[in-house]
């Protein structure tokens, strides 16, 4: 017994080779990517110096600028709220289409999936570019862009919730003679209502963050002020705007976490 020492290995041979190959591929991809971008030799020392330089220029934040950004800030919140509300209205039919158990047939199921996919794959700022062309620059285009982006998110997650519901209740409502609207209101909606509220608040929280940059493409909000300050190299004003954004985001995030805790 004692003559032979048996070592312990975490992995057998095949898995060890598998892990090695995976790591090698990852390394090759990363090195290859770096080569492809052709950034050339970067002196790593310059990056902290440049960033540090930027930060020194931002200090101290221009407090007087605060009064100028209250209006745009409220506008940002309006964009996020209205965008979320619009998305909520649009996402309910989309979710019903994209849920396997409520969609009428295969074609509508795929229609739902396509709407969700396209909406989610295109970033808010790209939607905003599109709607600025359509509705002219201003917060309206921003709110619609936010709505179009959020439809996919809400439609997908709400659809998944609908797929999880207890279908017995839906059938019971129908058996009691309910019309299809009534089935929706009394059979399906009560089961997904907590998720509906939780998801929309969560999305509203994300939308506040997204709507801070809409101004870059002319879709309103605090971004307009931010990019004006950046283009003027008014770094101290930029710092003020960033601090205000940070404050708003932290507040909305805790508000959203608190409310989601209530409905869970």
């Amino acid at each position, binding site marked *: 017994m004692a003559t032979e020492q048996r070592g312990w290995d975490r992995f057998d041979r095949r898995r060890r080779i598998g892990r090695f190959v995976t790591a090698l591929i990852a390394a090759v991809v990363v090195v290859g990517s770096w080569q*492809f971008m052709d950034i050339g030799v970067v002196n790593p020392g310059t990056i902290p110096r440049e960033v540090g330089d930027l930060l020194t220029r931002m200090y101290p934040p221009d407090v007087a600028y605060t009064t100028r950004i209250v209006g745009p800030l409220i506008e940002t919140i309006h964009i996020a709220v209205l965008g979320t509300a619009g998305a909520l209205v649009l996402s309910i039919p989309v979710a019903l289409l994209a849920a396997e158990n409520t969609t009428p047939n295969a074609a509508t199921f795929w229609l739902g999936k396509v709407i969700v996919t396209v909406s989610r794959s295109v970033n808010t700022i790209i939607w905003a570019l599109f709607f600025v062309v359509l509705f002219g620059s201003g917060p309206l285009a921003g709110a619609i862009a936010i709505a179009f982006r959020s439809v996919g998110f809400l439609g997908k997650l709400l659809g998944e919730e609908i797929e999880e519901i207890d279908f017995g209740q839906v059938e019971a409502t129908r058996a009691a003679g309910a019309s299809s609207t009534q089935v929706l209101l009394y059979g399906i909606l009560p089961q997904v209502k907590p998720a509906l509220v939780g998801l929309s608040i969560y999305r509203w929280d994300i939308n506040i963050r997204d709507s801070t940059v809409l101004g870059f493409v002319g879709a309103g909000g605090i971004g307009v002020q*931010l990019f004006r300050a950046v283009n003027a190299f008014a770094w101290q004003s930029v710092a003020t705007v960033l601090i205000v954004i940070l404050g708003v985001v932290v507040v909305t995030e805790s508000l959203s976490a608190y409310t989601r805790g209530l409905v869970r």
Partner: protein
Amino acid sequence: MAAGERTWERPTVFPRREVKWAVYAGIVGFFVWSGFGVGADPARIAQGLGSAGSLVGDFLPPAATPRQAERILDKMLESVAMAMVSTLTGIVLSVPIAFMAAENLSPKPLYAINRGFISVSRAFNAIIIAILAVKAVGFGPLAGILTITFKTVGFFSKLLAEDLEDINMGSVDAVRASGASPIQTLLYGVVPQVIPRFAGLSVYRWDINIRTSTIIGIVGAGGIGSVLLTAFNRYDYQYVTAILLAIIAVVLVAEGVSAVVRRRYN
């Protein structure tokens, strides 16, 4: 029993019905205020929808000359390359920050500093970070890598720190009780408990990074975003559609890969 007519009322989460109506009224009131705030004037919406018809016509069919197609391919590869590199750098930087931001493993002051850093990283949209990065290191993919790395650190450290806070401290104590040094405790007591989640999170973040890398070019931080913005500014809408289709295709592939890998690790 039969004396009084009893009706059924839907149960509600609110303590009183008056509170419920007040909350609903408040929400609706805010929507109305928002509607006026953004100038959601029906006439303007109708006008926009009217021109939508002809505009959508301009966007279709997607078209790109061979040179434009080549440019899409080149810049798209740049986007993907940025995402690859910055996923790695981001995760490498996230690991120590995550350990320092886990309440059960890190002393209070360190915990507070790292949580603060995470909040800052998460609060700002990638576009804002990208603008600052472009001002700091100039146009090009390097700014993009910095941006995505910074965003990755906030996301990844937060979720990893939450997993670290959920680990079973019993196994950590057991490893320590067998005489392991602090480093060994970390390696054999803590790390094995979060490795599966770590793999899943990495792939998830890689997927998000691919999405991010396709847009930050709009502010000059490398990748396909710059091509998209130029096409928009030249009213070359058919080219825009071609670029958008390329973006959607890449995002879908990334999402598919990420979903498959995450299913294997869960």
